[in-house]
């Protein structure tokens, strides 16, 4: 999986954020529609697509999209 593919999956999980508004350095918790439901959706997406378990505190600790991508890569 590439970082670009990960960003696409991430954007697809959100309702109103276009993929071209998300970059590896995007601090996803600053996105306008980010909330705990979005976090649950991302956790479920990562579980389903990569069979990797990330927890709520992993999400809290990650700042940027690429932090999260790295975490998923490490656990694959």
């Amino acid at each position, binding site marked *: 999986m590439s970082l670009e593919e990960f960003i696409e999956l991430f954007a697809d999980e959100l309702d109103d954020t276009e993929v071209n508004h998300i970059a590896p350095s995007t601090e996803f918790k600053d996105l306008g529609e980010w909330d705990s439901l979005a976090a*649950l*959706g991302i*956790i479920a*997406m990562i579980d*389903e697509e990569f069979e990797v*378990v990330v*927890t*709520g*505190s*992993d999400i809290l600790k990650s700042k940027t999209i690429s932090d999260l991508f790295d975490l998923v890569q490490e656990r694959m």
Partner: protein
Amino acid sequence: MCESLFSLENKNIVVTGASSGLGASIATECSKQGAKLYITGRNSSRLQATYDNLGPGDHNQNVIDLLNEDEIIQYCQELPEIDGLVLCAGILKTLPIKRLSKKAIDEIFQTNLFSSMLIIKTLLKMKKINIGASIVFLSSISVYHADIGNSIYSATKGAIDSFMRVLALETAGRKVTCNCIAPGFVPSRMLESGAIAQDQLREEEKKYPLGFGEPVDIAAGAIYLLSDASRWVTGTILKIDGGVTLK
């Protein structure tokens, strides 16, 4: 009535979902009150651990996959006539509604709801539920207290509440009582699976006027509902939640 109101002496009691969490605690505490236990679970080593913790007596354990209807019916055939049934088997998957899959819906409903319906239906048909027996379902305060990601779990528990009330009516003629326990958040294995972080747990606990409960707090309610002390109590939902739903 038995001399001790809350005694479970000479009662055959079945506990499903006894391999972990609340089910394990309920089985252990019931055995201490003198019941003869028939415990089931899906994980053989954890079920064995529950079995090893049971008080004195000649108890039974069976590993059952509640997703397999043939296994359920086979199990019911092997059971003797029973005085108590505690339906604790349950799974929780935290998923936003838009990420639900048919597979997840089927799995949660089969484990939390359909398997219990099938066990009860089968035992009734086989005339294995004694006069004056007690049936106790594990419901949840999540029926009334919505939380994101909990849709299917809550839906199964709401359905259990409704099913219980009809069952209570249909079995009252034989003095069978049917009730639910709606526990608040009791940290247990199901919840420690990783999806809920420790810091989130600490935040959650602040909402509980009495703090989080322990499995034994739920087991105490089950003992009451299984004992002769509650012989005139049917169709109720007993909240045991540390006061979290007061607010």
